[in-house]
């Protein structure tokens, strides 16, 4: 695995007056109910994970599951009650105010659900804001902001005020602003949740296009499971502050760790999530037909071709070496039968 950028070790966030003391007394065994009786609310409960450079971790959970709180602990908008958080090896919780500001000015960018644009600044001024806060002079910051305006496709609207833009356009400004300082780490807190479904899809595609180009380390928060599947390298599913499962989309769909996760996966169209490699048989490589498919292909894209075959279909890797095979009936099993024996 490549370089670890974000690392969390048993992070807790508990709201309430005696939170710190109660956490110490509990010895890491935090039960939300007993805490609630004593007037404390558990936001994040024992979260440990790592995010590698260039990886996109999507944290998915319903409202109140603690996903936003977790993100705010990692960006230190709130201080975690317990545990350790490392950003590129630096202990985040040990940073003083000045170091924290430096870190945010240079390494971090964040996009918000409600866009959080400054109402008194124009589009370009909003985007230039983090640069100007940093001390970049007006001309340079405006030039850089104009590049960002082009990147998110808002050319011609740079002098509009946020109130004159649609939701999707406002979020483009939010994205541009968060990228203006060229951060390495990119936090997105439900960036597309406030948008209409069609705009949301458009923005997701746009986002994937950007990420392909920029290769940032990303933590992306969403309550939409489909969105998580579409975007994520890995998904963390949260419930009541606890990370229920953290795995690749395919593994989550194929092997849900808990009943709660399984409920989400039930309605998921597998052929859209799984790739050939997930369902192929790596042991039998003989007696293949003429058709060869790549192991990284999403099932949906090749299903029709495979189903017309009578023989086994060969699976090849990027070097065209045969790594396994797949039976046409397996496709039918995956798409239609998987739900019964999936768990």
């Amino acid at each position, binding site marked *: 695995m490549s370089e670890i950028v974000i690392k969390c070790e048993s992070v807790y966030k508990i709201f309430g007056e005696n939170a710190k003391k109660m956490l110490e007394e509990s010895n890491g065994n935090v039960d939300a109910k007993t805490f609630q009786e004593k007037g404390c609310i558990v936001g994040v409960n024992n979260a440990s994970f790592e995010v590698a450079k260039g990886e996109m971790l999507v944290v998915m959970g319903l409202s109140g599951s603690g996903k936003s709180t977790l993100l*705010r602990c990692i*960006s230190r*908008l709130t201080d975690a009650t317990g545990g350790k958080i490392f950003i590129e090896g630096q202990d985040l919780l040990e940073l003083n105010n000045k170091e924290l*500001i*430096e870190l*945010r*000015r*240079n390494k*971090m*960018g*964040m996009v*918000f*659900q*409600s*866009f*959080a*644009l*400054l*109402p*008194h*600044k*124009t589009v370009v001024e909003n985007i230039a*804001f*983090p640069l100007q*806060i*940093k001390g970049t002079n007006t001309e340079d910051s405006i030039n850089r902001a104009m590049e960002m305006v082009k990147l998110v496709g808002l050319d011609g609207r740079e*002098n*509009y*005020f946020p*109130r004159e833009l649609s939701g999707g356009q406002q979020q483009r400004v*939010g994205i541009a*602003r*968060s990228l203006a*300082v060229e951060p390495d780490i990119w*936090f997105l807190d439900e960036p597309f949740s406030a948008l209409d479904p069609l705009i949301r899809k458009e923005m997701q595609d746009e986002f994937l296009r950007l990420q392909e180009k920029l290769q940032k380390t990303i933590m992306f928060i969403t309550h939409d499971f489909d969105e998580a599947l579409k975007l994520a390298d890995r998904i963390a599913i949260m419930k009541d502050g606890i990370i229920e499962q953290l795995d690749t989309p395919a593994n989550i769909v194929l092997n849900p760790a808990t009943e709660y996760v399984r409920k989400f996966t039930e309605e998921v169209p597998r052929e859209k999530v799984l790739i050939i490699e997930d369902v192929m048989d790596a042991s039998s490589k003989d007696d293949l037909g003429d058709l060869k498919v790549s192991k990284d292909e999403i099932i949906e894209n090749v299903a029709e071709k495979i189903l017309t075959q009578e023989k086994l279909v060969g699976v090849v890797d990027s070097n065209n070496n045969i790594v396994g095979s797949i039976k046409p009936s397996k496709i039918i099993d995956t798409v239609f039968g998987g739900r019964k024996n999936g768990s």
Partner: protein
Amino acid sequence: MEYLKKYPKLFQWLFLLIVFFALCFAIDVPETYKFIRGQAEFVKDPNQSVYFFLGKEVRYYAFDVFWRLPPLLGWLPIWINDSLFFLMNEWMPMEFWNEDTQEFKTRPILLQISRNLTAFMTFLIELIREILLGGLETIVAFTSWDFIDAYPWLELPGLPWTIVAAGAAILSYKLSGKGLALFAGLTMIYISIFGQWKPSMQTLSFILVAAPLSFIFGLGLGIAAYKSKRIEKALYPILLVMQTMPQYAVLVPALVLFGVGDHAAVIITMVVAVPPMILLTILGLRAIPPEVIEAGRMSGCTNWQLMLKVLIPTARRDILIGVNQVIMVCFSMAVISAFIGAKGLGFNLLLALNQLNIGLALEAGLCISLIAILLDKMSLAWANKQTDYFGNLTFFQRNKNVIFFAASFVIGIILAYVGTFIFKGSFNYLFEIPHNKGISTADFWNKGVDWIFDTFFVYIKAFNTWLIQDVLQPMRALYLRMPAVATLVLAVGAGYLIGGIRSALVVAALTLFIALSPWWDRALVTLYMATFGVVISCLIGFTVGTLCFQNKKSAAFMLGVCDIFQTFPSFVYLIPVMMLFGITDTSVLIAVIVYATIPATRYTIEGLRSVPVGLHEAATMSGVNKFQRLTKIEFPLAFPHMMLGLNQTIVFALFMVIIGAFIGTEDLGQYILKALSDKNGAGIGLTLGICVAFIGLIFDNLIRTWVGKRKKHLGID
């Protein structure tokens, strides 16, 4: 028994009332009791009782404890007074360098501070006044009288009125548009040609000093309260009392601390104007979406950057609404400050009213009203104005307002110069029209008043006599007939039934303070006048509000009318009623009713308006008619908001009753008025002010608690 279970609250209230009336009947009026018209502390009479506390002698008429509590707090005003005197004249004497006599002089530190503060304020006011009107005090402040004798041309000439008028119009145009610019221009021209220029500019200079200072302090304290819970907690009770304290009452301590004149008035105006600014600042900062703050933090803002570049600009509108409030409070204080010798329109108004020259009073009042409307509209326009982008404009487009002002400046000076040739030997009407040398319609109005009196005297008198003899006197007698214990039981019981033990305790403490002060009887008279005003105001306000609500246009119109009337300083309302009813309690009550009807009407319309459209549609689909919709849906839902209107109505009524003392009533206000001319009045004035504030707060607490519960119950808000 079934009813008891069904309506437990109703029976609790009934029980409370029964206890109250039982107490009223059980406790007889002591034979020696009479309403004391003189001030007890100055009357020495063998029937009085005396007690000493902290070395202060308190004299009072003793009655049965159930009938009237002894004034156990009677020492408080005297004590406040003595402490103030001590602080000002004896506490911490220090050596100070005296510029005039060129020697060190020993002075108490507070006196020195007060003198320096006053000198500073006087300088600021004079500076602005002289820019507007001309004069030489400012130059003298920097140099000396000898210097100005040597160079008499250094005297500031003052701006010609045409320039100020043009400036007001251009500023209005920039803030709002053509309509307001026209209004501003016409107002200024009116003021000028009717000879009110000088007092108006004096009042304006007062505001131009008081408002910015109040804004700075209010914003600063508001930010401090936003940042620190502890500061907010410390400020909260003061803010609460200041909101219900009659502005008039704070004038009295100002006299002692800062003397007579504009400077004292400016300082005390800040005391009154800062609280609303603090409240609106806190409100505005709290209303900022948390994500905007987080966005600021994630951009790497330091605390200062966050405050200056994110928080304050985002809360801009609320903060500017605060500025609007500050300006309006400053303006009404500028008028009332006439009582402690501030110059300007208020002074002229007071003078005219004292001479019973209704015509002159009316002219000054009209001026005050016009300026009030203008200031209100301008500051509101500023608050509601959204920033615009000016990227691709030419130099002329970008600076056109400045250019226009520069042009009118030059034209104004040329006109003033030309005027010296036209009006040779008389006043230069193109430069500045002196007071009382403009057109005056006073005679016309005075004749009108005389005519009204001659023609309708019989009817007005008959109405007056009927009202006073058959309504007011009996009502007053009833209020005074209440034994103190019964009143306490009623207040505390109501507090308990509405808000539980907490409310009961608050109400008990507030009521006890008044009952233990030497002015319980006066407080009852204040209360009776206020009640009378509030009941009628609410009847009118709720009816008018409901009727106007039936039509969208009339509702908007009525709200506009309320807006305009609300900007007038309360003092102005006394003019027309004195014109019609002369100097009687009736006049005061009518002024109270007119003034207090404003919030009653406004809150009714707003409350009815706030009923969600969805509910209207649901009701219509259930087939209700208009009347059913009103009684079954709109009233129950709007009722909590209307109750908040009642709360405001009570505060407005109390203010007006207190101001009405100027006409001559027998309530707490009369004592405040007396305290103004008493050199030992500071403690009395302050305690009286607190008494009035507490009356307001008792109702405020009860109503707000009830509204809070009711809203929760209805699930609105």
